[in-house]
């Protein structure tokens, strides 16, 4: 595993504490006086960084400067090298990238959508149809709901300012939806009107929201029991953090602006390598290992990074070794899957690995794991 090497930084170099045979102590300062004929190679950060092999580690304090140029993320990385050699690795820590983004159907994954809910939906026309990119499918309220409001709501991980959307929203028959609205909220309780519909939008069309604030929640709401089909709710312009930089460009000194073959997530830690034409993601950390666990024991496993996904499993066909479910390890071989989005009450992702609590089996056993970063 690539290590971040650090030198010792003394404030009193050469100072030692000497303990005499009578257990008395004294501080002494010792300086070299060995008059070497050869200065020698020192064991320091530079030596070990080079020994790790073709790795130029960007110091953590050097954060790429991110800009947005006509919809393309550009990451300016100052690597203090006179030239970069193809194939060498660069460790890149993605910064936040804030800006205005516009374009057809910005993917909800890029916006950090966490949840889509609705207070009603039919069994055949679920809420998911409203954001599937298909203008023929739609969300419709349940036939059991004949009065009251109907709404469909999007919750984002980080508040963003949605400025424009493309929508297709149609009521049954020819009646318009004068009270249909798009609203924003930061608590899911207090809502601000951002757009009021005055007529059906029967073909996918762009609307501009009256929005100058960031919201975590956005919803379409219509009242008085109207039957309405929401075919599409697409975001086409917003301001905020870019969770994923799609094919960004990186400028590393001698190379100039070169695209990255892949997606980089803000806050992510990547190893990149230039292959002669593009930057490619060389490695997402993957660590495997084993650990033993006994009854009522809490085990913390350190893998050196905060994993995105951990799979814990037991040896197959080993009665005494199988375990695991999230509720408590039991005698069946079902792997536990932990992500940074989900932690059960017995398992959790930690900043350096994961933890697991055993509370069932009377015997000690071995578990295996795969921890994946990125």
């Amino acid at each position, binding site marked *: 595993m690539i290590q971040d*090497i650090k*030198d*010792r*930084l*003394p*404030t*009193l*170099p*050469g100072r*030692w504490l000497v303990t005499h045979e009578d257990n008395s102590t004294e501080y002494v300062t*010792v*300086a*070299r006086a060995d008059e070497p004929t050869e*200065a*020698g*190679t*020192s*064991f*320091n*950060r*530079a030596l070990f*960084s*080079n020994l790790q092999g073709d790795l*130029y*580690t*960007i*110091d953590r*304090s*050097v954060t790429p400067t991110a800009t947005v140029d006509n919809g393309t993320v550009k990451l300016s990385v*100052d*690597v*203090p090298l006179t030239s970069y050699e193809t194939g060498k690795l660069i460790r890149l820590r993605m910064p936040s990238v804030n800006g205005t983004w516009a374009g057809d159907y910005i993917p909800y994954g890029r916006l950090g959508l966490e949840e889509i809910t609705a207070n009603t939906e039919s069994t055949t026309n679920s809420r998911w149809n409203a954001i599937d990119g298909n203008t023929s499918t739609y969300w419709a309220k349940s036939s059991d709901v004949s009065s009251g409001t109907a709404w469909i709501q999007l919750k984002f991980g980080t508040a963003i300012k949605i400025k424009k959307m493309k929508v297709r929203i149609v009521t049954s028959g020819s009646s318009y939806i004068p009270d249909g609205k798009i609203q924003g909220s930061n608590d899911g309780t207090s809502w601000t009107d951002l757009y009021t519909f005055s007529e059906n939008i029967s073909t996918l069309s762009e609307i501009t929201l009256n929005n100058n604030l960031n919201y975590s929640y956005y919803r379409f709401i219509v009242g008085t029991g109207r039957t309405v089909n929401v075919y599409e709710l697409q975001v086409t312009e917003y301001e905020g953090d870019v969770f994923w930089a799609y094919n960004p460009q990186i400028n590393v000194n001698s190379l100039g602006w070169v695209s990255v073959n892949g997606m980089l997530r803000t806050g992510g830690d990547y190893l990149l390598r230039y292959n002669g034409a593009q930057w490619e993601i060389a490695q997402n950390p993957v660590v495997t290992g084993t650990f033993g666990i006994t009854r009522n024991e809490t085990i913390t496993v350190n893998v050196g990074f905060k994993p995105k996904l951990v799979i814990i499993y037991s040896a197959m066909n080993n009665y005494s070794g199988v375990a695991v479910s999230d509720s408590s390890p039991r005698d069946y071989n079902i792997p536990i899957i932990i992500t940074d989005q989900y932690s059960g009450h017995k398992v959790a992702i930690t900043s350096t690995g994961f933890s697991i609590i055993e509370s069932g089996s009377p015997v000690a056993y071995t578990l295996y794991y795969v921890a994946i970063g990125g």
Partner: protein
Amino acid sequence: MDNLIYDRTQADVNRAIELNSKYNAGTITAEELEEWDNFLKGAIDYQTLNRVGEWVEYLSNKLNSYSYLQTTSPKTDWVETDFMSVEQSLTYLQNIRTLMNAINVRLTAELPNSMNKLTFESANAIEKILFDLDTGITNMEQTWKYVGEVISGEGYFS
């Protein structure tokens, strides 16, 4: 490089103001003019800016050679007739901040946020930080062990 200056006092500032006034009034003596023209400890001039720039360049290169990678853009060719722009002042401080972030040495001063209305204490702080960085790096160098000296599993007393 010239030695860093971080012990300016109010008296130094008062002296600089006094000589400036005499120069503007035309009452400055030859001896005072030489003092005013060559070196005013209580004033920030192009020599100060060049001195700081040279030290930033020196420390940046040294840190890079030790794999504490960072990039600075010091200016070392200030002349007497130059005026520092706002952008240049931001770069001036950011260079030092970059060095401070590159290595975790003990610092005995706080970097000012701005060059606007710089006091003598802030001017001292800028150069004291550079001195602390140099001291910390030197201390680090003095503790390195060398190939051929270390034996695995044994204590070592240098």
